[in-house]
């Protein structure tokens, strides 16, 4: 009887491993992971602030980053519906709802020390810093290196290794 219980627990142990996640959750989580491998020039807040512009991920950002820290600072999530309402932030996540305003958003954030991340198609080519997309069932990252340099971000090699690197708006991938 004991051996059956042990065997069952052992089997259950091996079964309770990684599984698939929703696309939205993977995008939400990777934002924080990417931040780990990017160096900002300065941080003015006691918090690591992620601002979500026109959120379409429900409560995922709150759930994922509850009681979490990035760069030793507790994460704070801000939700805004208008770029004008943005306060100081480390990351600006731009949802697909902002398709029509993307040029204006990138212009307004161009000189700010904010990492712009989005899952809009063409975002990196338009000047955004980091673009997320799915190839099949796997999440992919595109980094606009020139946009990063303009903002004086330093990108760790570990992030570069797992990303597609885009140089310049007209660069071919």
């Amino acid at each position, binding site marked *: 009887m004991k051996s059956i219980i042990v065997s069952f627990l*052992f089997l259950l142990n091996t079964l309770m491993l990684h*599984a698939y996640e929703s696309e939205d959750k993977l995008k939400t989580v990777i934002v924080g992971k990417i931040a780990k491998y990017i160096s900002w020039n300065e941080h003015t807040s006691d918090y690591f602030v992620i601002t979500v512009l026109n959120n379409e991920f429900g409560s995922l950002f709150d759930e994922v980053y509850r009681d979490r820290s990035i760069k030793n600072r507790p994460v704070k999530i801000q939700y805004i519906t208008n770029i004008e309402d943005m306060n100081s932030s480390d990351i600006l996540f731009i949802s697909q709802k902002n398709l029509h305003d993307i040029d204006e958003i990138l212009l307004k954030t161009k000189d700010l020390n904010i990492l712009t991340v989005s899952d809009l198609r063409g975002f990196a*080519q338009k000047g955004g810093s980091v673009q997320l997309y799915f190839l099949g069932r796997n999440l992919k990252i595109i980094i606009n290196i020139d946009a990063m340099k303009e903002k004086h971000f330093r990108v760790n090699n570990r992030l570069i290794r797992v990303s597609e690197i885009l140089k310049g708006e007209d660069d071919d991938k």
Partner: protein
Amino acid sequence: MISRYTSVLVSFLLLSFSLQAHENIFDKSMEDILAMESELKAEIGSRDGARNCLDSNTPVDVITYKQIESSGLLSLTDVLRYFVAGFNAPETSVADGSDHVRAFTLRGMSPDQVLVLINGKRVHTSALLHVNGVIGRGSSHVDLDTIALGAIDRVEILRDGAAAQYGSDAISGVINIILKGMGHKSSISTHYGQRSKGDGQKVEAEAFISRALKNDGFVNLSMEAIGEEQTQRAGEDHRVSPPTITSHVGIPESKSYKAMLNAEILNMDDLSVYSNALVNYRDSKASAFYRPAASNLVTKQGFLPQIEANILDYALSVGVKGTLGEHSTWNLSNSYGVNEFNYHVEDSMNYTLGTTSPTSFDNGGLKFVQNTTTLDFKKSTDILKIAGGIEFRYENYKINAGDEASYTNNNNFSIPSGSQGFAGFSPENEVDESRTNYALYVDSIVDLSKNLQLEVLARYEEYSDFGESTNAKFALSYKLNPKTLLRMSGSTGFRAPSLAQSFYSQTSSFVNSSTGELTTEGTFKVNHALSQELGAKDLKSERSKNLSMGTVYQPSKNLSFMFDLFFIEVNDRILLTQDIQTTKEQTLTYGVTAARFFTNAAQTKTKGVDVRANYQHFLHDNSKLDFSFWFNYTDNKIIDSRDDTSTYVEKVRIEDGQPKASVRLLTNYQINKFNTALNVSHFGEYYQAIGNEKYKFNPMTAVDLDISYNITKKSKVAIGGNNIFNAVPNKWNNLNGDFYGTNGIKPYSRYSPLGYSGAYYYLRASMEF
């Protein structure tokens, strides 16, 4: 001591278990997160956009491009047979045009009751109409083998009626082929294989070229060239002395060249222009039955007619889409497709021309053209999503006559006329017919509560020849708890007779399998004088009712179960009659000894169950194990037969000609640079009737294996096999005819779901750049 050890082990396991049960995705490394797979999404089944298959209100399955690659298969028909329990695609022989365009069925129903889409747009069908005694007899359908596998991102299969969404044909299900989009790397690959018997060599070369455009637009071009030798599984011909193998029974010899383009140009101000195109040229050769010297009415020498099919298939789809304010989209597209099927017969003769007969013939051909223009709108709010649109379609069907030598009877009505093997189309068979139809449809999804969703659809369609049809569908899904989804759908549907069914006609010589005698028989249009004399009536559309109910249970994120029951009733099902013997006067008048035509012959009922389980096991050393189990049971019955034109042979073909039960067990293990795909396919018993006798063929199980190794990050080699243990069907049991029988020319049934060519082994290599 042992007891203490066991206690420690149990404690460790319990602690480990509880820690893992609470492991948070945020604690994983960036690389682990990028290696994780998202949910399997599909667009088919709703106009609400791609959604998680496990949350779908109707049963939807997806085959990904990675799965297609690791199957080692080279045709879409074979891919679907490999992965989908309940999908059947026998390989036929000595069946004229049917040897060159494989018929396929879903849930044992007719091939023309499956709608096929590419990127959500209807695909044109083949011009070929199956008129021989094959599975799918009487139907014309999409030629799946025109599609380049390398162009495919995923294949979505909707196992439900969907005529209210997509229009005619979507009765047993819908197959939506999604082409690769942005982000795929360019690549080249090659494949070489052969059968365990040493024949059936196959060589394939493929290239996929992807070019990124501005704003993540793309242009992707896929090109494939495939050459395949025939396989030979014929039995000895006892009509000759000594008995010798005289005919060809097996996979035909073929060469196929395919190209597919998929492109999208994005304007960040919300407009995008998209296009896809395909072209396939295929040259395929198979034989008719051998004509022994004794039956040669002219030269007294035996010969084996070779029927060659030259198939040209091409299509172009262009569209533009954009948004209309927040949460509203529109999409305007036009899809144009053509299939041309031309026959040539070699190594044959026309007896009525005597010694002046040529031995090669241009037998004429078939052509089908379809053009579909669609305008869709979609709007979403918090609790309601609504979509609608209009569609206009034009179809044209042509038959072109062959050379006179291929069809003439030279005014001799006493011997079979036309080129032996397959007589050419005569001027009397020529046809150039068109029709149009337009449709209006609306689709709404409403969240009745947090857990309850209702989708209601309606479609009005009017054909220039068959009048109007209004169909509706409802689909309900209820989240009983976070792990359990209940779903149910009901719909009406229809299928308008194809232009081929309305206007195909052709006469040819056949070898009577009982007497060995050569006879001239024909397929005639419904409105032909002979058909009318034999009792033909104007065709009506088939009408269907579908009901399905099921559940999805996900005890954990890596384990899911699906259970779906289905019931389908088809009224006025269109079937080709059996060969009706003509009177002497009719033979003299029309030149045939038997005739057949299309008729709304029967009411059929289809019921069954699909059971699916999927399990994914991701190990800490970056290895991954995927299991998938699929059981399908389908029962088809003819409930009511209108007249005696549906004979016993047809009844057995529909009710028992395909396995009722089939199983797929798919496993994939990926570790470091190796990937192993091991699949087991099981097909239940099936039957074929000859005359009034029904013959049983035993269940079969095939094992497929593919082992690939990544030499570098961009290059890969693989070795594999399909049906590696060489499962072959049993031969006819207690049947000893010259043509069909244990020792006959065709010792196996043409209904065999796995064919009868046996094991196939291959090597493949690919490289990205």
